[in-house]
C-alpha cells in the first residue's frame, strides 16, 4: 500500500495563486512556481492547482505556468478548471501536468471521462465531485463550484465515474468546506468502497481531522487555508499521522 498523501490545493487566477476572502475579494499569494517550490520543500506529496477563472483567452497563460511548475517541481501535480475536451487535457499534460481534474464538463457529458482515459490512461484522470447532504439523495452532486444542483446522487455518480474510467476521485463536501469542523466521515465511508483512490476534501481544521479522514478510507487528504496560512505545517501534520501509526512519507 502506498503512503497516505497530503495534498495542498492552490486556486489560480490569471496565472497567480489567489485566496478568496469571504467569497468576494481575492488576495494574491504569489506565482504558482513560488508556492510549488515551497510545498515541495515542506514535504507535500502532490499538489492540485485549480484554475478558477479558466477561459479560452487565458489558455496560453495557463500553459506557461504549468510548464514552469513542471520544470521546477520534483513531485506530481494535477491541474483542473474548465477542462472540457481531450484537447484541453492534452495541452495541460504536454505542458507537464501529471493529471487533469474534470468536474462540471464530465457531469454534463460523461463520455469525456472515457475519452480522457482512452487517450491518456486512467491514471491521468481525476474526477472532482462537489457534494452536499440532501434529504432525498443522501448526498447530491453540485456543479460550477457548488452553485448549481444536479439530480445526481453522489454515491451513484462516483460508481459511474469509476466505470467510465476515472483513475482517482477528488471528493469535496460543500457542507464542510471552509468550516474547519472536520471531513464528512460517513461520506468517506461510502466513497472509499470504490476500487480507485480517494482524495478527501472539505472541512480540515485540526490534525485529528486528517487522521479521521484517512482512517475512514481516504487515500489522500486535501486542504488549502490550513497550509497556505501556515496554521498547520505539513511536517508537523505528517509527524502526527506517523505517531498514530499511519504510513506517511517523511
Amino acid at each position, binding site marked *: 500500500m502506498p*503512503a*497516505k498523501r497530503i495534498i495542498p490545493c492552490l486556486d489560480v487566477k490569471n496565472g497567480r495563486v489567489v485566496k478568496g476572502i469571504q467569497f468576494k475579494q481575492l488576495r494574491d499569494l504569489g506565482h504558482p512556481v513560488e508556492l510549488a517550490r515551497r510545498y515541495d520543500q515542506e514535504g507535500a506529496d502532490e499538489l492540485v492547482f485549480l484554475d478558477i477563472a479558466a477561459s479560452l483567452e487565458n489558455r496560453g497563460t495557463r500553459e506557461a505556468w504549468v510548464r514552469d511548475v513542471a520544470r521546477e517541481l520534483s513531485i506530481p501535480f494535477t491541474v483542473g478548471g474548465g477542462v472540457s475536451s481531450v484537447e484541453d487535457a492534452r495541452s495541460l499534460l504536454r505542458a507537464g501536468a501529471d493529471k487533469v481534474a474534470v468536474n462540471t464538463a464530465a457531469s454534463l457529458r460523461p463520455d469525456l471521462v472515457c475519452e480522457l482515459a482512452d487517450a491518456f490512461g486512467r491514471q491521468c484522470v481525476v474526477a472532482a465531485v462537489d457534494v452536499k447532504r440532501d434529504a432525498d439523495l443522501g448526498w447530491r452532486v453540485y456543479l460550477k463550484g457548488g452553485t448549481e444542483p444536479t439530480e445526481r446522487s453522489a454515491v451513484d455518480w462516483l460508481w459511474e465515474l469509476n466505470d467510465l474510467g476515472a483513475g482517482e476521485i477528488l471528493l469535496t463536501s460543500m457542507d464542510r468546506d471552509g468550516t474547519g469542523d472536520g471531513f464528512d466521515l460517513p461520506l468517506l465511508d461510502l466513497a472509499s468502497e470504490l476500487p480507485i483512490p480517494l482524495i478527501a476534501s472539505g472541512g480540515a481544521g485540526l490534525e485529528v481531522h486528517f487522521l479521521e479522514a484517512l482512517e475512514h478510507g481516504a487515500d489522500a487528504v486535501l486542504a488549502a487555508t490550513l497550509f497556505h496560512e501556515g496554521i498547520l505545517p505539513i511536517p508537523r501534520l505528517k509527524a502526527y499521522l506517523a505517531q498514530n501509526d499511519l504510513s506517511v512519507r517523511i
Partner: protein
Amino acid sequence: MSAGTITLIDYEAGNLASLEGALERLRLPYVRAASPDQAAESGPIVLPGVGHFEAAQRSLQERGWWGLLPALVAEGRPLLGICLGLQLLAEGSEEAPRTPGLGLVPGLVRRLGPGVKVPNMGWSRVRRASDHPALPDAEGAWLYFVHSYALEPSADTVYLADHGRPFAAVEARGKVMGFQPHPEKSGPDGLRLLQAALTWMGATAIAPEEPCL
C-alpha cells in the same frame, strides 16, 4: 552534439516536461527525438511513457523505434525505460495480451490486485533485491508510482516495491534498465537514482558555468 548526450524518445505517450526539467536540474544534456533520425549518435536512450501498452507500442512502431531499439541494445547502446517504458521492455503485458513487448528484460507485466486499489497511485518505499554496480543505496527510499500493471520480479530486479504483492520497481539487465516509479517525480531520492543510472549509462553532465570575474 557532445558524446554522452541523452536521447529522449518523444512519442506522445510520456510526460516529457517533467523529465526535461529533471535532466536540466541534473545538468545532463539531452535531445528530444520523435524519430530515430533525430537521436544522438551515441549515449543513453530514455523511453518514457504513460498510458496504454498497446497504444504506446503502436506509436513507437509508427515512428520507427520499435524494431530499432533491440538492434541498438544489441550493439551495446544503453536504454532506460520509465513507468510504461519499463513495461514495454518486458516480454509482454496482460494489458495487451496479443502485443509482444521488446523482450529486453525477462518476465511479464501483470495487472495489480485483487484486493488493492488500482491504479496504485502514490509514494511507496522500495527494498533492495540485488546489488547493482552503479545505483546508490536506496533501501527504504520513497518513490512515486502511478500504474495499474507491474513487472513480475526476476533475477534482474534491483529494487522491489509492494502493492498487494511484490513487483519490480527497478530492473537492470546489462545496460538496459527500467524504473516503474517516476524518478523525475520522486523528490531528491528519485533524482539521485536517475542521475546515477544515466551517468552509468554514459551521460555526462555539463560543468556549471564559470562565474564572471
